[in-house]
């Protein structure tokens, strides 16, 4: 293990219920919860600050939110910076909002006739060539809707027109529920959809056709019907060459890496084991994996889950660089509900250099971890100051 991470800030009881999603834009770390609110935590504060003093809360949906995805871009032919946020809610609806120029007071809802029900995981494709952006959403029917995302800026900065227009559907596997989604950030325009039956399909976004299918690698079969290898989280590497898939493997979690170009399984990430069953297969976590995030360079992958820890993996050596164990006692405010507040890490994201203020924020990458104990924790890599 080569890396060390230092806790820089945390917020205990950040939400009234489980914190289930996290995403980061330049100005804010955005967390969402099954309490129905989204919280915008200011990234630009000095080290010794209480995050709760610099948070903006937005109520989104009474049934709760389970996914959050951000789209951040400077509009072409304009200096206007826009952040669009998609919130997927437990009633099956998706709510879309935006704000401009890092000013949350410009918070505006995007009216849309789609996504009233039966929706699940959202995602944005930001075209590096600025030709055509897309919005995608998986649906309980088994298909994944693909929409053109057209943003037009009027004469004034605040005159923004956002239109979604249906382009097509990805529906090669309609028999299972598409529970996870990842979009390749490069010009390759590839999309990965994970289904509850264990399959992961890679689609071509423009042709709307499947390219590869990765079946479950679960090598242990069980008589228990509850045992399945749901691909809970998918993540493309920033260069678009790798797809990391976190699947359930019995009560453990495995991470499999696939080569996207040739559609091959190129290995798994496993913790060293002294068990005699090593031939069966190793696991990345001793619990289900709930979050995956590549760093900016694609050299490291962070994962987190039911075993109450975050692991950072070096993808070249396929070994762990760091393990951060989380517990309610980490938090400034340790008051909690013993029955419900479990420190299961439900989401993790790398934070690029230069986003979080404070010591080392410019030179080191950071991490943000959210959990079922209602805590939000920020870390930065040690050294290099």
């Amino acid at each position, binding site marked *: 293990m080569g890396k060390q991470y230092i806790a820089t800030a945390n917020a205990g009881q950040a939400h009234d*219920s*489980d914190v*289930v999603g996290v995403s980061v834009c330049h100005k804010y770390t955005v967390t969402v919860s*099954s309490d*129905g609110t989204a919280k915008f935590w200011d990234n630009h504060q000095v080290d010794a600050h209480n995050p709760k003093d610099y948070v903006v809360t937005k109520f989104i949906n*009474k*049934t*709760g939110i*389970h996914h959050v995805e951000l789209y951040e871009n400077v509009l072409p032919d304009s200096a206007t910076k826009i952040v669009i946020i998609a919130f997927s809610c*437990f*009633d*099956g609806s998706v709510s879309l909002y935006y704000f401009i120029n890092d000013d949350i007071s410009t918070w505006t809802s995007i009216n849309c006739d789609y996504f009233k029900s039966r929706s699940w995981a959202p995602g944005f494709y930001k075209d590096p060539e600025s030709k055509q952006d897309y919005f995608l959403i998986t649906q*309980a029917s088994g298909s994944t809707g693909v929409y053109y995302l057209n943003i037009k800026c009027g004469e004034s900065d605040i005159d923004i027109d956002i239109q979604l227009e249906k382009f097509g559907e990805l529906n090669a596997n309609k028999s299972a*529920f598409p*529970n996870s989604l990842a979009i390749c950030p490069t010009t390759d325009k590839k999309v990965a959809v994970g289904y*509850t039956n264990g399959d992961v399909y890679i689609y071509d976004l423009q042709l709307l056709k499947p390219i590869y299918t990765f079946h479950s690698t679960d090598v242990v079969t069980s008589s*228990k*019907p*509850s045992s*399945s290898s*749901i691909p809970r989280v998918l993540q493309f590497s920033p260069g678009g060459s790798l797809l990391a898939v976190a699947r359930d493997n019995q*009560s453990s979690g495995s991470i499999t890496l696939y080569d996207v170009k040739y559609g091959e399984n190129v290995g798994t990430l496993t913790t060293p084991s002294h068990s005699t069953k090593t031939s069966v297969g190793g696991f990345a976590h001793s619990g*289900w994996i709930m979050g995956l995030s590549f760093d900016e360079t694609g050299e490291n992958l962070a994962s987190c889950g039911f075993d109450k820890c975050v692991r950072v993996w070096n993808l070249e050596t396929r070994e762990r660089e760091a393990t951060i164990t989380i517990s309610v006692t980490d938090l400034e405010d340790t008051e909690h509900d*013993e*029955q*419900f507040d*479990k420190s*299961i890490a*439900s989401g993790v994201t790398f934070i690029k250099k230069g986003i979080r203020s404070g010591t080392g924020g410019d030179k080191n990458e950071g991490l943000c971890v959210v959990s*079922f104990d209602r805590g939000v924790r920020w870390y930065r890599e040690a050294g290099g100051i």
Partner: protein
Amino acid sequence: MLYQRLASLLRIWESIKVAMLESDYEVVFHLLDKNRSKSIFISQFSTTSGTNSKFILYVKTLKLLIQQLKLKSNKTTIRDIYYKDVELYNKNQSNCKNIMVSIVEHSLSWSLKDDLLISASQKGLLYGNGIIINGQKLDYSEDPFLIPIDFNITYGTCAKYEKTLIIVVFEKEAIFKSFCNYIKIKGSLDSFENLVAITGKGFPDYLTKEFYQNLINTCSKKLRIVNLAFVDSDVFGINIMKNYHSPIDLVHAGVHLLEYTYGWLNITNRDFQLLQNFLINNESSKYSRELTRGMLLFKKCEMNLLPNDSINEYIIEKIEFYMNHK
């Protein structure tokens, strides 16, 4: 009220007797259907044996009702009346129920339960220690029994934990019986001196709910109540809990999705839809957190019997937790 009803039934009975003795007449019962919009006629003499036997059924049921109302202990169940003449009802309890409902509820517009004190057969089971039901103190050494139709609840005195009563509601009969058996074999439980375990075998019937609510209302005046439910972590389990309409907070003590891994099952599309509907219709429910976890993880958790006693140890652990923390 009961006396007036008996008088009315006796008048009908007398009219039938008089009419039958008069050989010039044929007795015809004029009944009404469920909506009281359609007439049903049952004749004394008929060309088919089916209609003839129906007439006899109505006469005998009327007689059984009158006999029941004349008894000192008026409260009874449909099952008890059925067992007074099983052959007559063709060994089918629902025949007995249908005829009583046809006479009393559809045609006379009375309520079987409120006017004649005839309730549905008991379904709920009861077990415990410390509380006195109809003069008899519940004891861990006894077997579980059906909740009595006519109950009177009082509480005795227990030296050490005098002030706490633990009420445990179970969704499943199998878990309830296993728990009762576990305590019975173990002997006494010092820390749970006053405990009442109830199951409505799924959704509770009227009597089980009435008993449960009465127990809380009677005992909460002087005792601290620890009111716990052990149900599946799914929409049905939560709805069963809600169906008890507890006068005080009923805590979902178990099973919880994140801690009872033995019971994990994948959720189906139908489960998913039910979860969504529950969340939409129950705004900011205290059970939302458990259910949203199920949706997020695509799992539900069923409380099933295991070969060893781990389920009972789990329940005891939970009761101890809420005893000490609430």
